[in-house]
C-alpha cells in the first residue's frame, strides 16, 4: 500500500515536471542565472528558478513607486547583463535617470534606449526586439497591454528566449496577460544601521501578485553591497525593533 502510494506520488511528480517542461519552464541548470540574494523570492517560481526567456510584468504606482521599480529592475538587469550583455529599453515616456542604474550593477552605457512617440510603435519595437536573440533583456514601459498583445510577445519569447519586462506604471486596469509573473514593487522605509543617521539602503516591498505555476507572495528586499538581500527573520526583527523605537520616540 505504502509503496504504491509512493510510486503514485513519483509518477505525479514526474508528470508535473513534464508539464512544466512543455510550458517552457526548464529545471535549474547551467543556463540559468541565479539572482544573488533573491533566493526566497525564487522559491515562488516553478523549479525554484527565476524564469528567464519569459515575459515579466512589473507594476508600480506613482513616481516614487517607479523609482523603486527602476531600482529593482536595475538589480535584475545587472545579473542578466553580467557578461557584457546589452539591454534594450523601449519607452514612450521615460523618466529613468540612466546613471543611477550603475549602483544596481547594470552599466548604463550598455543599455540602449529607444524613446518612441506612439504606443503602437512601442509594442512593435518590443516584438521586434524580442526576436533578437543577442539581447540580454528588453524592458518596455507600457501602461496598458491587452491579453492579445501580451500573447504575441509570449509567442516571440518562446522562440528567442529573451527575457522581457513589461513595466506598467500606474496601470488603469489590470487585465489578464500571458506574463509568467506579475510583480509589484513599492518603496518601503529603509533600514538604517543602528546608531547611524541618514537614509539607509534602498528598500522595497516586492510582491508577486501572480505567478504561473507558482506561489504568489510578498517579500522585503534591500539592495546593498551590490546585491539583493531578501529579509529573513533577523531583519524582520530589526524592522520590528525600529518600529518600536519609532513608537516610543
Amino acid at each position: 500500500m505504502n509503496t504504491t502510494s509512493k510510486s503514485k506520488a513519483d509518477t505525479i511528480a514526474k508528470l508535473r515536471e513534464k508539464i512544466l517542461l512543455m510550458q517552457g519552464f526548464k529545471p535549474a541548470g547551467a543556463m540559468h542565472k541565479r539572482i544573488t540574494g533573491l533566493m526566497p523570492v525564487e522559491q515562488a517560481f516553478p523549479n525554484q528558478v527565476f524564469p528567464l526567456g519569459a515575459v515579466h510584468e512589473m507594476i508600480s504606482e506613482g513616481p516614487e513607486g517607479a523609482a523603486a521599480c527602476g531600482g529593482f529592475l536595475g538589480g535584475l538587469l545587472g545579473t542578466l547583463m553580467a557578461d557584457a550583455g546589452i539591454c534594450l529599453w523601449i519607452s514612450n515616456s521615460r523618466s529613468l535617470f540612466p546613471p543611477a542604474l550603475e549602483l544596481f550593477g547594470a552599466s548604463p552605457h550598455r543599455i540602449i534606449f529607444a524613446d518612441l512617440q506612439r504606443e503602437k510603435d512601442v509594442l512593435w519595437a518590443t516584438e521586434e526586439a524580442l526576436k533578437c536573440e543577442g539581447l540580454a533583456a528588453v524592458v518596455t514601459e507600457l501602461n496598458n497591454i491587452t491579453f492579445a498583445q501580451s500573447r504575441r510577445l509570449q509567442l516571440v519569447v518562446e522562440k528567442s528566449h529573451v527575457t522581457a519586462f513589461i513595466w506598467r506604471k500606474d496601470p488603469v486596469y489590470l487585465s489578464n496577460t500571458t506574463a509568467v509573473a506579475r510583480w509589484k514593487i513599492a518603496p518601503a522605509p529603509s533600514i538604517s544601521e543602528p546608531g547611524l543617521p541618514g537614509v539607509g539602503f534602498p528598500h522595497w516591498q516586492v510582491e508577486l501578485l501572480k505567478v504561473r505555476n507558482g506561489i504568489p507572495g510578498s517579500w522585503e528586499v534591500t539592495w546593498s553591497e551590490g546585491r539583493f538581500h531578501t529579509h529573513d527573520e533577523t531583519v524582520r526583527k530589526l524592522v520590528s525593533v525600529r518600529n518600536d523605537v519609532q513608537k516610543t520616540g
Partner: protein
Amino acid sequence: MQKRYLSLWFPYLMPDWYCMRRPDLRGTAFAFANLIRGRKIVTMISAAAADRGIAAKMTVADARALVPDLGVFDEQPGREARLLKALGRWCIRYSPLVATDPADGLFLDISGCSHLWGGEAAYLNDLLKRLRAPGYTVYGAIADTPGAAWAVARFGTPDHNIVKNGAQAKVLVELPAAALRLEKPLLERLSKLGLAKIGSFINMPRSVLRRRFGEGLLERLAQALGQQQEYLDPVVIPEPFQERLPCLEPIRTAAGIEIAIKRLLESLCTQLAAEGAGLRKGLLTMFRVDGKSIRTTIGTNQPVQHQGHLFKLFELKIPAIAPGMGIELFILEATRTEKMPIHLETLWKGGTAAEDAEITLLLDRIACRVGPGRIHRYVPDEHFWPERSLRLAASLTEKPELSWPLHRPRPTQLLTVPEKIEVTAPIPDYPPMLFRYQGKTHEICKADGPERIEREWWLDHGEHRDYYQVEDREGRRYWLFRSGHYKGDSRNQWFIHGFFA
C-alpha cells in the same frame, strides 16, 4: 564601350512652354522681348511668328510693323535655364547622364541605354513622342559624338536622325558650317570665303585652318568627329553606387515594388561588395507615369552590404509609397557609403559577434520606422549638474571614457525640470522637516545631505544647489534641493528633482 550621344533641340522652348500655360496662345504669333540699351528687343519668338517673318534681335517696334497683332511679353531672366534643367531632370528616366546645352538643347549620354527600348530608333522615337505630347517642338539626333548629334538634330533631316557608328564624318560633310557650333564672326568669315559647307574645308590641312580661323574651329571639328573628348556637365551627378530599373509596364502593386527593390538591391550589393563598401544611407527614387517622383530614404547604423537587411529596411517604407498611375523607373542610390570593416563581412554567416550584428540590424529597423534621433545611448560626461552628467554616445560602439559616478547617490527617476515645492526647514543648512509636493504633505523622518553641486560658471551664472536625500514616513525617498545659500529671513526656493529607489 562605344559611346553614343543624343542631342535634343527645342527651337521654340519658351514659347512652347508659355503655350502650355496659356492654351489660347497656341498657334498665334507672339514674342518675348527684353529691354536692351533702352530698346525693346525681341529675344524669343513662337513658331507662328517665325513663319510671318519675325526674327530674334528685331526691335519690338519693327516686329509690330510687320505683324500688327503680335503679342509681346516680357522675358523673365533665368526662366529658360530653369526650364531646360527641369527637362533635363525629366530625361533622367532615359539616361543617367543628362547635360544641358545652354539656350535650347539637351545632351544625353545614351551609351548602353537604348537596348532597353529595343534599339536607338525606338528609343529616340519614344523620347520625342513623349516630349511632343505636351506641346514642345523638339528635334533629336543620335551620333557617336555630342557635336555630330548636335549638328544632325539642327541641320539634318528628321528622317535620318541616327548617325551610324563611325559615320559622323560622312554625314557632316553635307551640313552647313553653322552645324559645328561656331561663333558668329567665324561663320561670317567662312561664308565670305565661300566655305558654306563643312565638306568644303574638312579636308584642308590643320595648319592652314588654324592660321586662318584659329584654334576654335579645329576644336569644334575634332569634337564633332570624335577625335577629341567633349566634357558634359551633368544636370544630376550620377552617384557611384546607383542602380536603375526601368519597367516595361508601370508598376502599381506593393508586390511589384518589392520585386523591383529586391532586384535593385541584388545588383547594388554585388557592386558594394566588389568595392568593399557598405551602405550607410540609401535613396530610392521612383519615377511615376504622371511625371512625379517619389523619394524614400533609409539609413543604417553601420555600413551594410547585406541584401536581406537592406530589403527589410525598405520593406518598412513600402506602405508609404503611393504609386499613383504606376511607377516606370526605379533608381536606387547609395548616397553615403563607408568602408566595410573587414570583420563585419563574416558576421552574417554566424559567429561570435553575430549577436551584436543582429542588434545593429534591429536598431536600424527601429530607426527606420520611427525616424532618426529616437535611439539613445548614454555615456558619462564631465559636468557637475546631474542633468548634464551624461551625454549621448556618438556611436553604438563608443566606450565611456569616464566611469559612472558611484560615490554620490543619484535618483532612478529624475524630473527633467525641477519642480517647486514648499518646505518647512527649521535650521539653516538642515534638511526640511516636511514638504508639500502636488498637494500632498510629506513628513520627513530621515535625511542625508547636503550635497552641494555648484553651477558651472563657464557655462552659466546663478545659484548653486544644496541637495538632500530624504525619506518620508511611508518610506518614499526624494531628492530635494535648495537653490542658493540660506538667506535668513528671505525665503529660499526649494525644488524636488528626483525620486530614489
